[in-house]
């Protein structure tokens, strides 16, 4: 399945958001996720299944003003 993660295309085998995070090496606890513009809470990642073309955003803490 082809999906977009942080604006980059990825071919993944996982079916859920939780599986894909692991598959792509995002194992930090300090991550927040969104799918197709909507927030996906940490507790909902395992139950969130993906479809081809879905856009995932994975954000981390960053310096800001």
């Amino acid at each position, binding site marked *: 399945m082809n999906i977009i993660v942080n604006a980059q295309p990825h071919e993944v085998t996982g079916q859920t958001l939780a599986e894909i995070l692991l598959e792509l090496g995002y194992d930090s606890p300090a991550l927040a996720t969104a799918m197709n513009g909507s927030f996906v809470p940490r507790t909902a990642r395992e139950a969130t299944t993906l479809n081809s073309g879905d856009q995932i955003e994975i954000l*981390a*803490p960053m*310096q*800001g003003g």
Partner: protein
Amino acid sequence: MQFYGTEVPCPLLLGTAQYPSPQILKDAIKASGVDVITVSLRRETADGSGAGFWNTLHDLGCHILPNTAGCHSVQEAVTTAHMARELFGTDWIKLEVIGHADTLQPDVFGLVEAARILCSDGFKVFPYTTDDLIVGEKLLTAGCEILMPWGAPIGSGQGLRTPDALRSMRAHFPDVPLIVDAGIGRPSDACKAMELGMDAVLLNTAVAKAGDPVLMAQAMAQALTAGRSGYLADPMEPRDMAVPSTPILGMAELA
């Protein structure tokens, strides 16, 4: 001073971006006695580059105020706020809905709408707004308990472009915490904001891009304290003409 029921003694709120090094950021925070620092969220890489900053944040012991910097739509800002709440474990959010790429001026229409959505969802919203009184009223109606008018465009260091409007805000919203957010360049700008009756100042670039950020952080904190005392001390009104301060009575005739 209280923000949504949390006591915040230091009137300086400091951004964490653009410092020469993480150590200088830490030293600047320590030197100025800051209680609240702003942070953001950006795309993570698979090597976990955001984790280092995460560890730095925990060491600082400050209240974290995440922002929605760079968001140009209500949906972007609302989604970012939700991600920030989970990531940083706080319902505080510095709400930015940017309307113009060159001036980084707030889109006040989107701002009020995003504030309404977030306040009704339990967020404690710190809205980055203009000095417009009607927008301020609408933000309060939306559920905000703080207003953050800009002093000048973000990162410009121009100081307070509309001090009269800020004075009007103080008079119009006597019981609402007012924080000047953005545009401060020098300690005298920060002092002036407090003399106008503002409760606090949020700044980043003026400290981070100073030649000595630690010394500048300290200077900003001192300027805010002086400005606050000056406001409370009820300054004299300016006069058009000179008035001698030394008594005339008893003056010798020596001519």
